[in-house]
Each structure stands twice: as structure tokens, then as C-alpha cells.
């Protein structure tokens, strides 16, 4: 009883963390993501070979003890390239989602808070962006910008903005009616202060869930764009562009295609499980 009292005192985020910790699969996903982050940060120390080391005596080698996941057409170690590739994928996923959240969140907050004409205009603009299938929008944007890391992030972020704008707008609309917002309006708080100090912190929960699932989508889009040759260009190790160059050897060397894709899948899988777990933890009512 005493323990329970303590717990309720610590507040919403502590409770959510407590619920998440009890969810074994979500914790496992968190563990995998932690490993991935460590791989990305310490790639130079973890990878058995430098990612660009070419060994023309050992090209197209199947997995062996020396090269755990085999080598590619230039004799480069595939495992090392996958480990280095985690850097790009996590970076692109994280930064494009952050960008999309900042812009989408602001648009959604302004739209939900002010309502009326502003809301109408902004939401119609979002409708237009949403009328183009996301992947297609990202493809055309990536084609318009020159290929490269920053532009890849921009292309994916723009395609994701409408989704966040809608989520945040919906959250703001419910929070706006709360009494504490009225109270702060009464004591003369500015609109900006109300939005940033009172409204946005209170709609963090749906944003976090959406961001985790969205990061999975962003990593998928990044690899798809690189696969089409519109994202990260070949010498840089990136999972999608590794798949793109493995394609021509698909008939003889399956390992070149299998492993980079597996790396994408494991990452997305972990992010999806974590996202589901976070949704259950942050909003227990939704759990079934």
C-alpha cells in the first residue's frame, strides 16, 4: 500500500516507465535499439574491418568464420558495412523525425490553438500534401534536391509533416478546453507561453508514440530512396544502397542481399514493438 502511494506521487512519466518496464517485449526492443545505438557510435571499434577496405582476393565470399556475413563485389566485409550503415540509418531516422515533429508540431499547435481561418488554411494545405502518397512525395522531393544526407532528411521530413500536424492538432484541441489553460489566460499569459509551457508538454505522449513508429517509417523510406539511387550514394555504407548494389548479383550471391535487409528489418521491428509498448504504457486505456 505504502509502495503504491509512493508510485502515484511520482507522476505520469514515472508511471509510464513503470508500465513499460513490465512489458518484456518492449524492454527487449529497447535493448536491441540500445545495441544499435552503441554499434552506431562505436562503429570504428566494433566493426572487424574498415568499411571501405577492399580485398580483391576475397570478393563475393559467402559467410565464413573470417567474414561472418561474407564479402561484397569489392571484397569489402559486409558485417562491417552493416555496422557502419547503422550510423546513417539511425541518423536519418532520428533527424528527419525531429525535423518533422518540430515543423508539424508547430503547425498543428498553431492550427489547433487559434482555430478558425488559420486552422482551415493550414489543414487544407496539409490535405494537399496528404493527397500525394507519402513515398511518392519523398521520391519527387529527393529527385528535386541533390542526393545526399541532408536532402534525404529534408525529403522524408516534409513528407511526414502532415501526419504530425494532425496528431498535435487533435491533442491541442482537447487540451485547449481544460481549465488550467483558461486559468493561465486569465492571469494574462501570452499565447506563445500557453502553447509552449502548457499545451505542448501535455500532448507529448501521443507525439512520442507517433515519433517512435514514425522513425521506423523514416528508416524504411530512407532505405527505399537509397535503393532507388535517390538517397545516400554507393561508396557510403547505407543499408538501402547496399541492397541497390547487391541487386545485380542476386542470382549468384544471396548473402549480399539478405543481410542488409535483415538489418533494416530488425531495426524497424524493434522500433515498432517499442512504439506499441510505449502506446500501452502512455495510454493504458488503449490497451487490449
Amino acid at each position, binding site marked *: 500500500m505504502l509502495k503504491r502511494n509512493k508510485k502515484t506521487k511520482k507522476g505520469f512519466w514515472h508511471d509510464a516507465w513503470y508500465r513499460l518496464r513490465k512489458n518484456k517485449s518492449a524492454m527487449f526492443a529497447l535493448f536491441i535499439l540500445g545495441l544499435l545505438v552503441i554499434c552506431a557510435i562505436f562503429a570504428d571499434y566494433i566493426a572487424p574491418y574498415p568499411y571501405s577496405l577492399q580485398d580483391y582476393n576475397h570478393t563475393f565470399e559467402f559467410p565464413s568464420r573470417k567474414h561472418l556475413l561474407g564479402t561484397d563485389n569489392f571484397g569489402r566485409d559486409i558485417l562491417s558495412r552493416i555496422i557502419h550503415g547503422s550510423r546513417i540509418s539511425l541518423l536519418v531516422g532520428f533527424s528527419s523525425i525531429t525535423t518533422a515533429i518540430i515543423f508539424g508540431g508547430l503547425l498543428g499547435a498553431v492550427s489547433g490553438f487559434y482555430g478558425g481561418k488559420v486552422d482551415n488554411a493550414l489543414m487544407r494545405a496539409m490535405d494537399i500534401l496528404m493527397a500525394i502518397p507519402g*513515398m511518392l512525395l519523398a521520391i519527387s522531393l529527393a529527385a528535386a534536391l541533390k542526393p545526399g544526407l541532408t536532402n534525404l532528411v529534408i525529403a522524408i521530413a516534409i513528407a511526414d509533416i502532415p501526419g504530425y500536424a494532425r496528431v498535435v492538432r487533435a491533442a491541442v484541441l482537447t487540451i485547449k478546453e481544460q481549465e488550467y489553460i483558461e486559468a493561465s489566460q486569465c492571469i494574462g499569459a501570452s499565447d506563445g507561453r500557453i502553447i509552449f509551457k502548457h499545451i505542448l508538454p501535455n500532448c507529448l505522449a501521443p507525439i512520442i508514440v507517433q515519433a517512435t513508429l514514425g522513425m521506423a517509417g523514416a528508416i524504411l523510406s530512407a532505405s527505399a530512396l537509397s535503393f532507388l539511387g535517390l538517397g545516400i550514394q554507393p561508396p557510403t555504407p547505407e543499408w538501402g544502397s547496399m*541492397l541497390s548494389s547487391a541487386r545485380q548479383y542476386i542470382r549468384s550471391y544471396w548473402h549480399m542481399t539478405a543481410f542488409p535487409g535483415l538489418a*533494416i528489418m530488425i531495426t524497424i521491428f524493434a522500433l515498432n514493438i517499442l512504439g506499441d509498448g510505449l502506446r500501452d504504457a502512455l495510454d493504458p486505456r488503449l490497451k487490449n
Partner: protein
Amino acid sequence: MIRYIGKRLLMMVPVLLGVIVIVFTIMYLTPGDPARMMLGAGAPASAVEELRETLGLNDSYFVQLLRYIKNVVFRFDLGQSYASNKPVINEILERFPKTILLATLSVTISVIVGISMGIISATKQYSIFDKIATSIALLGVSMPTFWAGLMAVIIFSVHLRWLPASGSYGWEYWILPSLTLGLSSSATIMRMTRSSLLEVIRQDYIRTARAKGQNERVVIIYHALKNAMIPVITVIGMRFGALLGGSVLIESVFAISGLGKFIIDSISMRDNPVVQGGVLLLALSFSICNLLVDILYGFLDPRIKSQYSISRKRGWRRNAQAQ
């Protein structure tokens, strides 16, 4: 109902105009000179300049945009392809049926597989089947479609030699691409069906139906499923859009000469009118699909229909008062 459909159709107009503006602007900002691409690197500067003038590329952004909108809206003219010099509309309509066929086949597969798996999973919650099916679905959601396509080629074409790996010359060529796309999106539909059905099954009217001794199959299919379908239909509509986008990837994996592959090829050739037209056509089909979803809502959910008829009554009353 007809007024509702008409209203939704009218709402599509500004959205589509906006799409034209966005797509045009993106392509306008794309680096590279189409005139230079058409004539080749060795062409004299005067010839390039002349071609730019005839293509209208020297005009300002707004002049070009207005001309494009005017041509598209009033004449269905999407311009000429820089690469083949043929009208874009013919070129894309030639390839569009393949994309639509692929999307329809995949949606059919994903609906059949997704909904039936979702029903079994929800009715037998926490059984072994449910656990296996939800895990497979989660894996399916996490798999990049183009990678799944590549792996399918490795397994079924290269090693087992059951099916052809690329092209679109007969029915057997469609099996791998549509199964890849269909099964990967069935995962989303299955998850949605399961969670939506689980929610509906706990409602009072389901308990009532069971209490009056109704057959369990009838309860699930007639009482529960119809009410659980609304979010599922939304997801199916969204998946269709994702499929149109995803078909770009699958078409280039399986070398199907559909619209998606045409767009990608045209991007690398800087054939802007084709990219504009192609994206526009896909966005239009996506909007039509969303419209169909909205109309289906009206049929499935009497609340939406009644909401609409109430507003009509109110309007009628207002008119009566005005008189």
C-alpha cells in the same frame, strides 16, 4: 447521399489544384536543364537556348505554372515528354493499367488474408494461432517491401525456379510482385481488424446477441464485423495509397513497365513533364480511392448517414424560417 458525394467531389477540386501546384513547383526546382539533356552535352549553346525558348523554359515561374494548370485543367494536356517527344498523357495512360492491376491484385490479396487472419486472431485471442499470427504480422510490417521482393526472387525464381523473376508477359509474372506487395500490407490490415474486432466484441450488443442464443458465427460476421470494419476500411484506403507509392519500388524490383517504374526512369532522365504527370495521376487515383472510402463509410455506418440527413433537415428548416 448524392449531395454528400457531390460535396466530397467538390472538395477534391482545390486539393487537386494544390497537388498540381506542389508537383509543378518541386519539378521546377529540380536542378538540371531539360533542353541540355534533350540535345546532349555536345550541342551548341544557341540551339539549347532556342529549345529553351520553344519549350517555354525561359518564362518566369508563375507564367509557366499558370500555363501548366491551364493545359491540365482545360485540355487534359500534361505536356510533351522530353525523352520521346510524345504527349505525356498517352505515355502514362499506356503504362497505368499495369500499375492499377498490380495495386488491385495486391489490395485483394491483402484484404482477403488480412481480414480473415484478423478475425481468427481476435476470436481466438491469446491462442497459439493468435500469437503466431500477430508476430508474423509484426514482422511483415517491419519488412521493407522491396527487400521482401528481392528475397522472393532469390527463393522462388533463383533457387526453386518456380516463377519468373522479372517482366510482365503473362499471368505467372504477376504472382511474385502482387504476393509481395499484398502480403506485406495484409499485416497492417490484420492488426487493425484484430484490434477493432476485439473492441467491438466487448460491446453490450454482442453480449445480447450471444445471450439470445445466436450462432457464434452469425454474431461475429453480422453483428461484430460490420461495426468493426470502419477503421479497417480507413486502413485499406490508406494502404491503397501506400501501394501506389510502393508499386514504384516493386515495379523497379520486378522490372514491370508500369507507371511507377516509368516515373523513376524519368527522374533519372530529368523528363520533368512525365514525372509531373505521373505523380499527378497517382495522386488523383489516391484521392478517388479516398472518396470511395468515404462513400463506403456512409453505407457501413448509419450514424454518418443520419448525421448527413439531420444537417439537410436543418437546412430545410432554415429555409422554411426564412420564408
